[in-house]
């Protein structure tokens, strides 16, 4: 398939802190396809934001990408491993902003308070394209119009604090899309917004994605947003992708106990009132005290019911459970309960995808 844009293989990003090593991202495999939306979903501390930053290599010390590969398919047969580039080098900087752009959770904090919106939008454009100030301004105002900011000529010279939250996030989007990147990474783009504003921004993102035919990586903790936006979904828990598949696979045929637990525990709008939710017991462990074996084993009902003791000691491999559907769980391993250590080694190899769309 030539629709593959970015291929993440066994990505590992670790934080070297005074109090110990935190393996924020610990062996993540992902495929990001052109024109599609991949949602990466998980609870706080699962490493999804660090994973997103690793894609652009903007993780700063004490964090460091310590292993893996990020292959960027620039065109047919033109594949580069981004991790071969120096994190501060010119190739990586040419990639950032131009090929892949990013928007962040808190639009107020993510915009510099002392420069105008226009200045910050043009900055990115003029960095990657040789254009005059006047041309850049025209393009930027056009972009502001496109993201639905009224009176863009006037807003070009406004400061971030003069805009409302929703407008700021639109400005952020305009800033990210000004170079027409192939990939947009959106880190919780609507978490800080009200529901009605969230709906506006989500709709805007969908419209722009279709128009610009870009791939979107959507980082979120909200399964509602995932269901609305995603084509493919990766569920993360403690630095690993525990399950990935199409949005239908994940929502209607979840295979990992964590995904099932998550789906059962989210409150829904429909249904009887004053009902009970099915909670996952315990809390996400502290990153310093990461459990051995399967990281989820301390909270996994199914492990306890099925009396699978290997979950405590050995990390499960990513098992293919459907055409494009994988889960990292012993329950699905064909050997079931008894497993040789060789299988564990096999599991750490990169997964092979079968076919495509």
């Amino acid at each position, binding site marked *: 398939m030539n629709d593959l844009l970015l291929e993440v293989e066994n990505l590992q990003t670790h934080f070297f802190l005074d109090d110990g090593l935190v393996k924020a991202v610990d062996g993540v495999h992902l495929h990001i396809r052109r024109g599609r939306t991949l949602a990466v979903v998980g609870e706080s501390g699962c490493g999804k934001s660090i994973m997103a930053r690793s894609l652009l290599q*903007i993780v700063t010390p004490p964090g460091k990408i310590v292993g893996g590969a990020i292959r960027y398919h620039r065109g047919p047969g033109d594949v580069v491993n981004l991790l071969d580039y120096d994190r501060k080098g010119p190739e990586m900087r040419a990639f950032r902003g131009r090929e892949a752009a*990013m928007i962040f*959770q808190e639009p107020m904090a*993510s915009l510099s*308070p002392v420069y105008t919106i226009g200045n910050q939008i043009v900055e990115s454009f003029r*960095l990657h394209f040789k254009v005059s100030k006047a041309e850049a301004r025209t393009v930027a105002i056009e972009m502001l119009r496109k993201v639905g900011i009224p009176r863009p000529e006037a807003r070009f010279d406004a*400061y971030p604090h003069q805009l409302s939250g929703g407008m700021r996030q639109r400005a952020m989007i305009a800033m990210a899309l000004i170079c027409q990147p192939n990939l947009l990474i959106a880190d919780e783009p609507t978490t800080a917004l009200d529901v009605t504003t969230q709906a506006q921004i989500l709709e805007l993102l969908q419209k722009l994605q279709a128009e610009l035919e870009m791939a979107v990586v959507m980082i979120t903790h909200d399964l509602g947003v995932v269901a609305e936006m995603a084509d493919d979904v990766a569920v993360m828990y403690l630095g690993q992708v525990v399950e990935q598949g199409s949005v239908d696979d994940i929502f209607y045929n979840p295979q990992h106990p964590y995904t099932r637990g998550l789906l059962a525990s989210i409150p829904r709008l429909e249904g009887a009132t004053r009902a009970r939710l099915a909670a996952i017991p315990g809390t996400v462990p502290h990153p310093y005290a990461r459990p051995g074996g399967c990281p989820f084993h301390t909270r996994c009902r199914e492990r306890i019911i099925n009396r699978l003791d290997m979950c405590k000691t050995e990390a499960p491999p990513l098992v293919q459970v459907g055409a494009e559907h994988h889960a990292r769980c012993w329950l699905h391993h064909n050997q079931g309960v008894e497993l040789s250590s060789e299988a564990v080694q096999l599991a750490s190899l990169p997964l092979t995808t079968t076919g495509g769309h």
Partner: protein
Amino acid sequence: MTSYILRRLLYFIPTLLAISLVTFFIIQLPPGDFLTSFEARALASGDQADLERVEQLRERYGLDQPWYVQYWKWFTGILVGDFGYSFQWKQPVADLLGQRMLLTFLLALATTVFVWAVAIPMGIYAAMRKNTVGDYAVSFTGFIGLATPDFLLALVLMWVAFFYFDMSVGGLFSPEFEGAPWSMAKVWDLLGHLWIPVVVIGTNGTAGLIRILRANLLDELHKPYVETARAKGLTEWHLTAKHPVRVALNPFISGIGDTLPGLISGATITSIVLSLPTAGPLLLQSLLSQDMYLAGSYIFLLSILSVLGVLISDILLAWLDPRIRYQ
């Protein structure tokens, strides 16, 4: 913006009044009457001209009247350029202070330029190279600078110049230019002498500003908007210089208000040690001899200079930071 500046200028008036009151209070504090001792000396020496002058002064500054009359006469005098009379020098204060204040201000200005020129690059360097040998070197030098009293630095520099270069480093001019009229050669001579007091006075402020800038910048460097800039593809230097440095400089600029009084204080003590023809040594003498109008005018003028510094820094800050401007 204009209304902001006008408002700030309006605040300036009560501050001016308050400073004049405080100054007047301070110069009135020491026990004894300057005039009385002056008179006694004049009587003892039998100087009739001095005795007459005593009467004139008593009349002109209302010295036999209650303190508020004295204050009013003194304050309104200042407003028209009459700073009073120095009993010790037997001259109007304004004549005595003129050139010395000019040199004091020049020194403070030169020092500010020096402080900024040194502190900004060093502070940025230390923050961007956090926890490297370079950072430690800058920070440690800064600490030494902060901890060394001005006079010690002055003495050490003088000592080094005296012993190793056989140079006399006191004063701002070589003896041949001391009383000479201004000329290019004199200016050149001044510049040759100026660097020692500038370094001595500036070291302390430089060290302080390096620390402030480094700390501010380290705070800013972790803000999300820096990450945004990084995600755009800017180089580390470019994104640091354009974004966080700009924000980190804000407290720096508001620091002008604090820096100026500091520089002037430093200048006072350094001037005394280096015997510079600035206002500092004159102040010390006038304080020791309780020459009230001279001392009072000096403290008053320095305070005004400092308050002006705060005013300038506030206006600059409003100009630089849109969040303040639109408040």
